[in-house]
């Protein structure tokens, strides 16, 4: 991407106004995508972006500038802009000696850029055909394919030099079904930090049929109940609950500004003893997996809650330095145009001992949620909300009728206390994009079957 001596020159320039810390982040990203909708291959797209983000930290102030110009003058101009925004007391000349950190990118079987476009297009057609064959009620099908290769290089004034090469491949199917009760939607997506071998592991026909079945089933759904009820969440379908209800509140930037309900509670019991939550950027091939974070720190497996006790928060460099502790590999950014901040990678609740069938059988009346949609949390109060995209009634310990969509709401710390059963059937969920402060990054999540004794279900039925 850029040569090592130039990186060192740029770091020297960035420190010229007396900054305590300087960093160069270089990114070269290529992507390709295909979209089928309404029976037509509407478009194939290709994208390319490359550039560098330079930050300088002086005291409590961070200066940042980015440029798409990777020539020496372009980089030096960005370094000067970042340095001007963060002036330190001293100034002068400092020389940085770089020391390369070894990190192994995720192994890639088949490079997506070496796969013929026609092969990618064929996947879209196969998904369309399978979804339309799934039932008479199927009215509309969309399918999209995407791959990206993101090469990054990070160097900083502590002498760190590290690189990663991240390839992700994604496939999504959306179905609209229509019947006497109106229209309903179904959706399935798979995505991994892997190459085109994704399609050895998943058949697009299966995804298409599952999306169609979800939409068709919801045609006979009744309105979701309203009020507080026991909720059983299926394996892999509800990791977003822990991402929202607890993960964001454990990000050290929220904690240090005291806008997290978990601030100052390390060592305390914050959840039911059945609950252990881990953030792990090293899980092979998962959507949120990286070799290094966007500050050059190798990804790690970080236990956040162990048997109900809060053990640690998630850290980036800025926040860890302030607390005088080690980084955890959670400094991430959307692109070279963004500053890194504390972000999750793959966040999950570990498996328990219960038989998932017993969890449902022991629930006289409640809701079974097979798939949750997106969610949102207020970290300061812990109040969260997320959508149910596939849910059923539980009556007399049995899963019965499908329910229309609705939101679930609750309070993070309260819900963690109210988990009274955790299954032995752990599964990772679909790929996600986590939004924070206007930046989106790929994240994974996972859960085994579990039961929350009470969540507020926001349906329209009495």
């Amino acid at each position: 991407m850029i040569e090592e001596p130039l990186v060192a020159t740029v770091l020297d320039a960035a420190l010229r106004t007396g900054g305590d810390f300087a960093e160069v982040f270089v990114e070269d990203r290529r992507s390709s995508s295909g979209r089928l909708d309404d029976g037509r291959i509407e478009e194939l797209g290709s994208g390319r972006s490359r550039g560098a983000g330079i930050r300088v930290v002086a005291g409590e102030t961070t200066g940042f500038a980015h440029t798409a110009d990777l020539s020496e003058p372009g980089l030096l101009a960005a370094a000067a802009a970042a340095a001007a925004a963060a002036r330190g007391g001293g100034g002068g000349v400092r020389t940085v000696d770089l020391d390369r950190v070894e990190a192994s990118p995720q192994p890639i079987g088949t490079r997506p850029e070496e796969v013929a476009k026609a092969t990618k297009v064929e996947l879209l057609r196969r998904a369309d055909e399978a979804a339309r064959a799934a039932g008479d009620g199927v009215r509309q099908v969309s399918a999209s394919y995407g791959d990206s290769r993101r090469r990054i290089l990070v160097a900083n004034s502590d002498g760190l030099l590290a690189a990663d090469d991240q390839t992700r491949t994604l496939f999504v199917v959306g179905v609209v079904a229509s019947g006497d009760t109106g229209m309903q939607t179904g959706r399935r997506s798979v995505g991994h930090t892997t190459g085109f071998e994704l399609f050895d592991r998943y058949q697009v026909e299966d995804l298409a049929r599952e999306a169609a079945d979800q939409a068709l089933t919801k045609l006979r759904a009744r309105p979701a109940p309203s009020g507080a009820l026991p909720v059983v969440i299926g394996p892999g379908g509800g990791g977003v609950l822990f991402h929202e209800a607890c993960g964001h509140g454990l990000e050290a930037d929220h904690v240090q500004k005291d806008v997290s309900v978990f601030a100052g509670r390390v060592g305390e019991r914050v959840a039911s003893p059945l609950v252990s939550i881990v953030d792990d950027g090293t899980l092979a091939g998962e959507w949120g997996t990286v070799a290094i974070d966007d500050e050059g720190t190798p990804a790690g497996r970080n236990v956040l809650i162990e048997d109900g006790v809060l053990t640690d928060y998630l850290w980036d460099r800025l926040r860890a330095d302030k607390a005088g502790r080690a980084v955890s590999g959670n400094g991430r950014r959307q692109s070279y145009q963004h500053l890194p901040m504390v972000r999750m990678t793959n966040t999950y609740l570990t498996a328990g001992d219960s038989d998932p069938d017993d969890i449902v059988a022991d629930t006289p009346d409640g809701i079974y949620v097979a798939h949750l949609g997106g969610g949102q949390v207020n970290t300061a109060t812990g109040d969260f909300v997320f959508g149910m995209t596939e849910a059923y009634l539980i009556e007399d310990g049995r899963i019965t009728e499908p329910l229309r969509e609705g939101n679930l709401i609750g309070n993070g710390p309260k819900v963690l206390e109210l988990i009274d059963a955790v299954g032995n059937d752990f599964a990772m969920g679909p790929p996600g994009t986590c939004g924070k402060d206007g930046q989106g990054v790929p994240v994974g999540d996972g859960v085994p079957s579990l039961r929350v004794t009470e969540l507020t279900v926001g349906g329209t039925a009495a």
Partner: protein
Amino acid sequence: MSELLDIADRVIGSARPGEQVEVVVGRSTSTEVRVYGGEVEQFASATSAGIGVRVVSGHRQGFAHAGTLDDDVLAETLAEARDNATFATDDEWLGLAEPDGVPVPELDLYRPGVDAVATEDKIQLAIDLERAVRAADRRIAGVDAADYADGVSEGVVVTTTGIRTVSRDANCYVSVSCVASDGDDTQTGFGFSVGRLPSELDVEAAAADASDRATRLLGATKPSSGRVTVVLDPYVTAQFLGIIGSILSGEAVLKGRSLFAERLGEEVAAPVLTLVDDPTNTLAYTASETDGEGLASRRNVLIDGGRLERFVHNAYTARRAGTTSTGNAVRGFASTPGVGCRALSLAPGAKDQAALLADVGEGVLISSVSGLHSGVNPVSGDFSTGAQGLCIAGGELGAPLREFTIASTLQRMLAEVAAVGSDLEWLPMRAAGLSLVVRDVTVSGS
């Protein structure tokens, strides 16, 4: 600006006979300041630019984009778009926009000056904002972010079909989020002010909004479940309009994803409701002289007195629907044009919020909603979101409420609009807000 046109012209010059080529070039400069504890926490300044190339050849479309304007990349982008087109399905309606005779309005969206304001003055606005929030109420426990940001963006669209338009705008804003505490209870609030020059920003009003939003919810409890009349605060109404706008997209209609597909000319809302999309209104944050395909922006009445009048279209969906583009192509340089509403507003009514509350008597004021993107399905119409607000009792605001949901369907909410407020305000999104009274909404609490 002429530099961007030169780049676009150069790529267009490489078009081959029989192919249509569209080039979109965008460039923006921005400044972002975040203040914390009276000090600058972050200061970012940036210029970014990019190009998007669309090729339509033999009724097939291909696209490529790049986040740089380097010469080698420009040629590669055109070649990629051309290659991508060969894999698309033949579609007789495909084609670029063509000049339609509607003159491009001259709007006052760019004022030289943002770049002339000293950095220190921009930082001072954020410092003043943080201080004003802290001083607003003794229960304000913290300000987690006080921001100032500005940006100037320029764009050109040039096609082989005769489109050659430029647009430029500048805007800036301050925004703040804060935490209020009283005993064990914690609540959050936010406030902002937007303008085209820093001198237009109202720091005091933004601070007061943030403080009020946080403190008025202290002591909030869960309401009991039931069906009630709600009054949506302007900010919530604007978010609701954004969803209604997506149902009126010509693309959703053509592809069988709009619940209004068969209802043109019918009553779809209460008679008090008139919905207009007007990106030529310079008060709108998203006002712009042209749309994403370079056609003139224009005012479109979508719902008139409750009657569905019109869907919005870009060149492709219009051609396929047998009509003309309404100037509603929306995109950045990194994507092909979609279809979307650009600056929605409701025709305001006669009464302010206080008068509406007095008319309602008993109900719930919804001051904010969360989880709109996950709880509302614009295809089925199912609507369910988390909410916070205040009880309305005896025609006045009463006790604060939290941790509940409101649910209905979009169809029913539109039909049950009982009154539209007079308190229209433009917000930093594709819609304006005002108070809206909606009957028969299900509240789920305890």
